[in-house]
């Protein structure tokens, strides 16, 4: 069957999927306390005051804000990021609104319904056993489940605001230790105005018995979300952490500039998985979330391990490089990524692996899938320091093109400073081969399902690294994101 004939061959599956579009585009009508738009030192002070923060944190914010003022929005990414009017955004939105007086533990039933609709039950009895959730809407953490059960083992899992109040010594020690506020433009902005996010502390020798998860939701109009996540895993500890995100469909672009910092001590292991499904904008590229995120892990101790797994299907613009600093000797870092772009989405994503310690190892597996008019880039840096003797890196970046109007790009940077390390990089770009499609068709699999099958097979290396619940969701997302792209 010719390509044109296949495209014309209407199929209910594709139409179904196409009509489904973005499932999470609803808004919640909840009384939300939003501060005035605009950004100034007063706003930074106001946010700090609303959260009742100690003076050292306000100082940290102000330093970051003053530094941010000296910086310019970067332009080096392979994305068309329009100039953002930072004065047109409100930097704090609290959906708990004025009901706070009735006690922080009581959640507005509207909010609970919202999270139920998203498949994130906040009621512990109904929740999937084995996953503790911190639900963040707009600028505040709405509820953290299973806190008490985790506390029995000494694990701290709470919103970062609570951590500031209850464990200031830990937050003070680690906040900004991996991502300095001077790191980049968006990191400086986040450090100045960050609102809420999760804090995790795993004590020495403790294996976290359940998956920890944060669910981010932007609801209020014209707000930006600036969450901050800090994970510290002490000697010999283990934690698997999941992150999910959605936003309502709006014609305006929304800004999401987060920072995730992870510190992994000796022999500890952290797995960080993300399914990013922010609103990607409509078919003409109107609206959508600008996802400009700094994520970095410090493998501080000997034998520490960190793995980033990400499935990126949403956002109008994604600009994100979850990175690892392999400082401890023998530390191991992994990065697995599937990035899907469709319609007018743009993604510039990848990783940085900075090898400082001896015998460190890193693996990068990146799969890009582009369709429609989208642009999908992998950008990665592998750096071997002069003392990183005997270190190894293997990177593999594959791109799949599903239309003749999209683009797939690979920009790897390799920097080697010693004579005992080995760095390997390979990349391929191709489309789904006619032979593969033909083979599936011969066996009675219609073209659209064949494409979904092949794409899922292509992304399997990465999807298999995801925890069970996420893998199912990610597979569903892949087929939704690729609606109408048979070719």
């Amino acid at each position, binding site marked *: 069957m010719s390509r044109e004939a296949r495209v014309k061959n209407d199929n209910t599956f594709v139409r179904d999927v196409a009509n489904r579009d973005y499932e999470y585009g609803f808004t919640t009508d909840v009384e939300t306390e939003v501060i005035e738009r605009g950004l100034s030192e007063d706003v930074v002070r106001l946010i700090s005051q609303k959260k009742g923060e100690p003076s050292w944190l306000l100082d940290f914010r102000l330093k970051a804000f003053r530094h941010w003022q000296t910086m310019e929005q970067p332009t080096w990414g392979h994305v068309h990021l329009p100039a953002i009017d930072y004065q047109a955004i409100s930097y704090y939105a609290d959906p708990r609104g004025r009901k706070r007086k009735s006690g922080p533990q009581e959640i507005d039933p509207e909010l609970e319904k919202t999270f139920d609709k998203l498949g994130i039950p906040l009621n512990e009895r109904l929740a999937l056993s084995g996953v503790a959730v911190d639900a963040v809407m707009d600028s505040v953490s709405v509820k953290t489940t299973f806190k008490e059960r985790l506390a029995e083992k000494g694990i701290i899992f709470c919103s970062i605001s609570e951590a500031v109040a209850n464990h200031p010594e830990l937050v003070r020690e680690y906040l900004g230790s991996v991502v300095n506020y001077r790191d980049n433009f968006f990191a400086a902005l986040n450090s100045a105005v960050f609102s809420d996010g999760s804090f995790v502390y795993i004590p020495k020798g403790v294996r976290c018995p359940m998956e920890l998860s944060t669910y981010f939701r932007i609801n209020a109009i014209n707000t930006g979300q600036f969450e901050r996540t800090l994970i510290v895993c002490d000697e010999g500890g283990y934690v698997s952490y999941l992150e999910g995100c959605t936003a309502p469909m709006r014609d305006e672009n929304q800004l999401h500039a987060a920072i995730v910092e992870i510190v992994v001590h000796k022999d500890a292991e952290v797995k960080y998985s993300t399914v990013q499904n922010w609103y990607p904008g409509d078919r003409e590229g109107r609206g959508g979330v600008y996802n400009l995120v700094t994520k970095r892990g410090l493998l501080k101790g000997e034998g520490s391990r960190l793995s980033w797994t990400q499935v990126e299907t949403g956002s109008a613009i994604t600009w994100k490089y979850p990175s690892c600093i392999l400082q401890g000797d023998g530390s191991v870092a992994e990065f697995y990524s599937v990035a899907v772009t469709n319609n007018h989405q743009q993604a510039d994503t990848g990783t940085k692996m900075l090898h400082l310690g001896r015998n460190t190892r890193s693996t990068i597996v990146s799969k890009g899938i582009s369709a429609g008019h989208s642009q999908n880039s992998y950008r990665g840096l592998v750096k071997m320091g*002069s003392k990183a003797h005997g270190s190894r890196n293997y990177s593999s970046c594959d*791109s799949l093109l599903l239309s003749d109007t999209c683009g797939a*790009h690979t920009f*790897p940077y390799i920097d080697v400073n010693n004579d005992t390390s080995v760095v390997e990089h*390979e990349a391929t770009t191709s*489309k789904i081969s006619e032979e593969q499609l033909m083979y599936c068709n011969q066996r009675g699999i219609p073209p659209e399902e064949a494409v979904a099958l092949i794409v899922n097979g292509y992304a399997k290396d990465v999807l298999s690294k995801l925890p069970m619940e996420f893998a199912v969701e990610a597979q569903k997302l892949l087929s939704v994101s690729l609606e109408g792209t048979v070719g």
Partner: protein
Amino acid sequence: MQFLEARGLPTRKDERYKYTDVAAVLEPDFGLNLGRLSLQFDPRQTYRCRVPGLGSSVHYVVGDSVAESNVLIDDGSLFVGSMVEFAQRYPDILRAYYNKVEGDSLAALNTLLVQDGLVIRVAKGRKVADLLQIVNLSVGSVPMLANRRQLIIMEQGAEASILNCNHSATRCSNLATEVVEGVLAEGSHLQYYSVEETTNNCNLLNTTQFVQHESSKLDYASITLNSGLSRRTINITLDGTHAQTAVSGLVLANDNRHIDNNLLVVHNAPLCSSDILYKYVLDGSSIGAFAGKVLVNAQAQKTDSQETNANLCVSPTARMFTQPMLEIYADDVKCNHGSTVGQLDDTALFYMAQRGITPEEGRLLLQQAFAWDVLQRIDLLPLRQRLMHMVEERFRRGAGACGDCVMCAG
């Protein structure tokens, strides 16, 4: 000049000049031979660059002027000679092909300062049997800046092989800016090999641009055996269908050499192929940089592109930067790239040691084998053998010891 004024010289903030500090290269106070003083220098007497067994016509460019005669060959279908002379004889042709390099400040600087250059024009259907060897000699008893220029015009169905050698006949530090422009018309075939065998005082800023039309074929190789700082910007544009290009490079560097190859291959037409292979062997505190971007535009369907960059760091202080890039806007393409940085295989060394080969000899053999991959792509057997010999000598006896030239003899 206006472009240069508007743009300025490239800095390390420019993505393509990230690894080479152009300002530092240009900083010393260089002399310019503005008065076109003829240099009392007979290249044939003092310098030999020979390739045994290769029938070639050898032509010299001393400093930045064509030596001996303004017109070396002009038999109607083949012109080799000075650009000034070519401008008088064939002004329309020169106008059509000269100075088509866009967006490069160093090329603009060369255009601004250049006084003469070399033109090689092969007319329609002419197949040049002999290798054309161009020997560029750096001379001068004071630090000099030479601005060299080459224009290569391959008309329809023409065939030629060019060997461009850079040598030095001075121990003074000097800098050459070099612009090579080439156009390959329909069905033409050009083999262009560039060999750099100078001294650590000789710095080179080269910009090479080739535009290929339908069914044309280009084999380009640059071999850097010895030099100071060497920077090559190579732009190849495939404008016609079925055009083929093979680009290779071999870099051997030691001490504090700095070798940077920056390659851009643009596929503008369908059914073209590009094959890129670059290998570096870095010793001492040398710095190697390689960036190779293959850009496939939307109309260039059925592109077949391969890019390989392999590097050996044989000393703890050598440093390698590599950046193999793909930028693809067409869906029916087959593109891949691979890049490695590593060391010699311990198992192979052990195997050879078992068979009585000393570790030093074993290392040498492995390094040679690694380098020869690139040389295997050179079609002209005598040239390939000569280069293999030179590479072996280079590994065995160190840089600048070819034993064959005035510098070694002196």
